[in-house]
């Protein structure tokens, strides 16, 4: 991959096409997991791939391409996440009629609660969770990708996982469902 990076840095479009083909699916998967929306994830992936092409000549160490490119992807996710966050349609929560017993909780409920809990997290926190638990990056590399201190990365991961665990424990709270206002 380093050879492709160096060639692309020199303006070799063919090399960049190969490089982008190699990383695009993974980028989309990461963006989709951070943003929880395929359209936004595609936009973020496109932004990131174009930004990588534009800024590649300024990458001093080609061996750091992976961390550097993920950082651009996360930045693109921030930008797309802003759109979603500010102007998402409103929802309100209403109690459902029938309580659900703890025994009825299934993995589907877990997924719903996780989805809800994850969407409550900021993009900062989502990025740490996805980079660490989806890409399996050690926390010091997560910090490197995001350009934050390791302690901050630890703190964000802890905060995020606490929120997700609370979402999983939602069976202790009155169940709710979402309806469009």
């Amino acid at each position, binding site marked *: 991959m380093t050879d492709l990076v160096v060639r692309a840095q020199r303006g070799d479009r063919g090399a960049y096409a190969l490089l*982008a*083909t190699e990383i695009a699916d993974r980028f989309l998967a990461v963006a989709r997991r951070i943003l929880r929306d395929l359209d936004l*994830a595609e936009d973020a992936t496109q932004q990131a791939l174009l930004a990588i092409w534009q800024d590649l000549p300024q990458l001093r160490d080609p061996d750091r391409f992976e961390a550097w490119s993920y950082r651009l992807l996360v930045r693109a996710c921030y930008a797309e996440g802003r759109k979603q966050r500010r102007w998402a*349609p409103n929802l309100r*929560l209403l109690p459902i009629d029938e309580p659900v017993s703890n025994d009825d909780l299934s993995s589907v409920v877990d997924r719903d609660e996780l989805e809800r809990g994850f969407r409550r997290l*900021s993009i900062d926190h989502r990025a740490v969770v996805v980079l660490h638990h989806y890409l399996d990056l050690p926390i010091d590399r997560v910090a490197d990708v995001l350009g934050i201190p390791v302690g901050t990365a630890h703190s964000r991961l802890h905060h995020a*996982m606490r929120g997700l665990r609370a979402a999983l424990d939602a069976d202790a709270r009155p169940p709710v469902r979402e309806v469009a206002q």
Partner: protein
Amino acid sequence: MSTDRDATRIVRSWLRTDEHESADRVLDHVLALLDATPQRRSLWPARRIAHMNTFAKLGIAAAAVLVVAVVGYNLLPANGGVGGGPAVSPSPSPSPSHSPTQSLRPEPTFTVGAFPAAGSLSVGRYAITENGVPFSLEVSTTGWRSDGQQIPPDGGAFTKSSGTPQSVWMIFWSIDGVYADPCGHVPGPVLSPSAADLAAAVAGLPATDIITPPSDVTIGGRPAKHVAIRFRDDVGCSPSQYYMWYDDVRCGGDDPCYRWVSASGQRNDVWIVEVNGAHVWIEAETLDAATPETIQEVQQMIDSIQFE
């Protein structure tokens, strides 16, 4: 009650479901755009500078200053806009105020350009129409970019240093009310468009510290209210679940637009300008790490607003 280990296992499993995304469509689009997308190249690679001796560096620096000064002087139009700034129609414009750090830039003469949907904002004056009220404002420093937000019907949002703790957002829109129960997402009643009512409602939001109580100001020669609040750490829910204010009328569709808190501790300055029975709502959102220079730039932009 799940244990930490359970939660981690479930989260990891959940993140790995549905791993069938194909980026082919995105890839095709990106590759089609490459020819039209130039790479940004460093004119003076740092590596070369690092190997030069001090006299050579000083010589290059002096030459660079001279070149910038000469080119800037030659580009300075006798009567017109600076190249690269927003295009279009002529307009009377005041001289911009400059921070002391921008001494090399030729004094720009502003023209008015339409506020771009997205992309970097050149130094210049931009026209925005919000809630039927046309006005313009001046961007007098580099680094700002339009976020590409579609703020119904025609507002704008732009940012500097987005995605960093130093980020600042400026948003131009109109609202109808604030949330009576921000964490419960219960909207309060639609308020009158008076600046006083709206500013008082902002100041009354729970779990906020008032930095500047509603106060009378003048923006572009129009009466306005300014209020500044900071969201405390104990807002009672996660920041993204704290809803601040909403636009129930102009957003289109059946659902209102609304804003929520980006991070605890954030500061929101709101200016509400009354114009011919309508109002323009201007927000500046900053985090703790926003620099005094950025705050000053925001105020300069507010001070530069002119209504038609």
